[in-house]
């Protein structure tokens, strides 16, 4: 969301290099010249809305899981679905602090082999259990999680907070630098 009175801090600010290191000569893996090197960008992306500005150089396709130099041998297998060391169980949340196994809240009349937490599932069918699990996650969800948390705020400048401060709290001789 863009507030109309809000000017993006870097729009119209001139060359990106102002205040920052100018883009170094392009270091190019494919041998050509690029508009900007891998680590510098001409314009920042706006927080919300479409991107604009120069594109960074195309990066060649990466080999997924590639190792460079031999360290961490065997690491790749963990990205390929290592077989779990434990008996697979339903991913139902268990009570905090409960041993990782049967829930201590289970009563003896529960179906044997049932591993779910009573909060989130029942022995009376997986669909019902899934619904209970979803209800549990509803408690963690809030619509505000997707709403802009800064929507109701206006930028406060450093100088504004300076003027708020009680002059009594500052040394008078210092005052001249900040409060003129």
């Amino acid at each position, binding site marked *: 969301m863009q507030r109309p009175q809000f000017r993006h801090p870097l729009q119209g600010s001139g060359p990106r290099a102002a205040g920052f290191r100018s883009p170094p000569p392009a270091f190019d893996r494919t041998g050509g010249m690029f508009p900007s090197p891998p680590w510098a960008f001409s314009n920042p*992306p706006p927080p919300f809305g479409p991107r604009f500005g120069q594109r960074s150089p195309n990066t060649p396709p990466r080999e997924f899981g590639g190792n460079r130099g031999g360290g961490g041998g065997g690491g790749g297998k963990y990205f390929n679905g290592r077989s779990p060391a434990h008996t697979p169980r339903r991913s139902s949340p268990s009570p905090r602090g409960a*041993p990782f196994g049967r829930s201590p809240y289970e009563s003896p009349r529960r179906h044997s082999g049932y591993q779910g937490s009573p909060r989130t599932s029942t022995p009376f069918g997986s669909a019902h259990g899934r619904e209970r699990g979803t209800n549990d996650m509803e408690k*963690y969800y809030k619509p505000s999680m997707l709403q802009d948390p800064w929507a109701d*705020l206006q930028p*406060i400048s450093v*100088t504004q907070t300076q003027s*708020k401060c009680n002059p009594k*709290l500052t040394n008078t001789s210092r005052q001249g630098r900040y409060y003129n």
Partner: protein
Amino acid sequence: MKVAVEGCCHGELDKIYESISYLENKEGVKVDLLLCCGDFQAVRNEGDMKCMAVPAKYRHMQTFYKYYSGEKKAPVLTIFIGGNHEASNHLQELPYGGWVAPNIYYLGYAGIVRFKGVRIGGLSGIFKSHDYKKGHFEYPPYGPDSLRSVYHIRNIDVFKLKQIKMPIDIFMTHDWPRGIYHYGNTNQLLRQKKFLRQEVECGTLGSPAAAELLDHLQPTYWFSAHLHVKFAALMQHEAKNNAAPKITKFLSLDKCLPHRDFLQIVEVADRPGSSEHLEYDPEWLAILKATDSLQKPSCNFWNPPQDNGLYTRWDFSASDEAMMEVVSDLSGDLCIPENFSLTVPAYDPSCPQPNAHPVYSTNPQTTELCATLGLTDIYILAGQAYGEECATGATGEEEDEDSTGSVDEPSEYPTDTSGLSSSYNPDEITIEDEWVEEEDEEVECTEGKGTDAVVPEGQVGSQDSDRDSSPQREMANRLILPSTCSAPESEAPLRSLRPLSLPPPLASLSQGSSEEEGGLTPARVPKRTSGETTLGSASHTGSTPQIKRRNQSIYTAVENEESED
């Protein structure tokens, strides 16, 4: 791309990923990245659990081990920083960052990476003035003091981050930059967290180191956690170098519990054509290389080099050549290798090892990175120096400080604050039972204060010598920001930082507020703010705080007395 930001994790990975999945299904969105702002608790086994600074009753395995062992895999790329509740031995294996599990990346003590062209940085730990100038000397098995000091932010890491020159998109710290609460709805914050009022009004809440970085980096986004409250702020920095003033969007989030504001989806524009994989950041790696020799795994104080005639070099920012050298070191491939491997056994619920000891082990990821870039594995360095320097030096000071806290602040944990120590730990956050909102607010009262200590001038080393900070406790009430020691350092960023720790204009604060530049006469800070502020300050007279030159107190060898004019 859609970035999910989470506050304090406290090992609730299952819940967090399930929440994201639920949200994706419900809203029809796809989350590309998860950022977690600390208290991650990457506990692999029972030994790691003993390296976590939590009371015994909260020392639970939680769910991370499943992702470590391979039983589960993180459904979305996850990047996190450390907080004050961590498996510190595990994180110390990765000082420059690394994978703690497939698809879960730790940024290290400090780090910057890139994802889809977005620069993401972070600083792990929380600020504690008395440990700020020390090196990363800690080494498992931890004592009661090192168990906590290990996650205290160090000035060497802040110094490295201050060499960054190019814009950062996202930055994370666990605790808040000091003063940020003035840039949002402060009243609402104080309604939600009443116990923060005094510190907010005194300007002592939050990390001065983080405030300094906020002023220097001016990232587009700054995410934090620690205080278990959702708080948003919009800070407009002073313009630099004729550029338009930048604005930082600050957001702090809660911990993962039902009905809490622990998660936020933020739309961050990525850069077309950039890699789909997590990448190293050449500027950051160049800084790591340049500053490598500065690191000392010692509990003695370290003063960053500055342009005062005593140092041959004080600017360690990355030149173009240095960045190109880094890319060359990486053979042109900035992609972070997916080289995770188990280094210690994972927790096995069917075969628990309650007597397992914390393991010290080097991590092949760090070994590989150090070999590639010519860096020092400071964890190994710490192990070599362990016991030689710190057996006596830090212990007395830490105990003193902790015992003060137990006298003046009601402990969050009524009795046993740690399995390893009987002293009060002001860094603790209550991991209370679910649904207990009121208890949460009450018991977090002292935690919020304890963690955000006033920076005692003496402790942060106004002189060049390495010294124990305990004799300086009388000066503990001064509110001083860490100096910006890297040259060229202009006055402008110093000034812009100043208001971050200025209290709002309340006449009643005459006794409680001290100018962040550090009075020669320290102002009295209310006792509840920190254990550090209580010991017999000779200046508890309420006299007018005098202003010292900001940013000199920590780094300079000789105090600059000319600041008043």
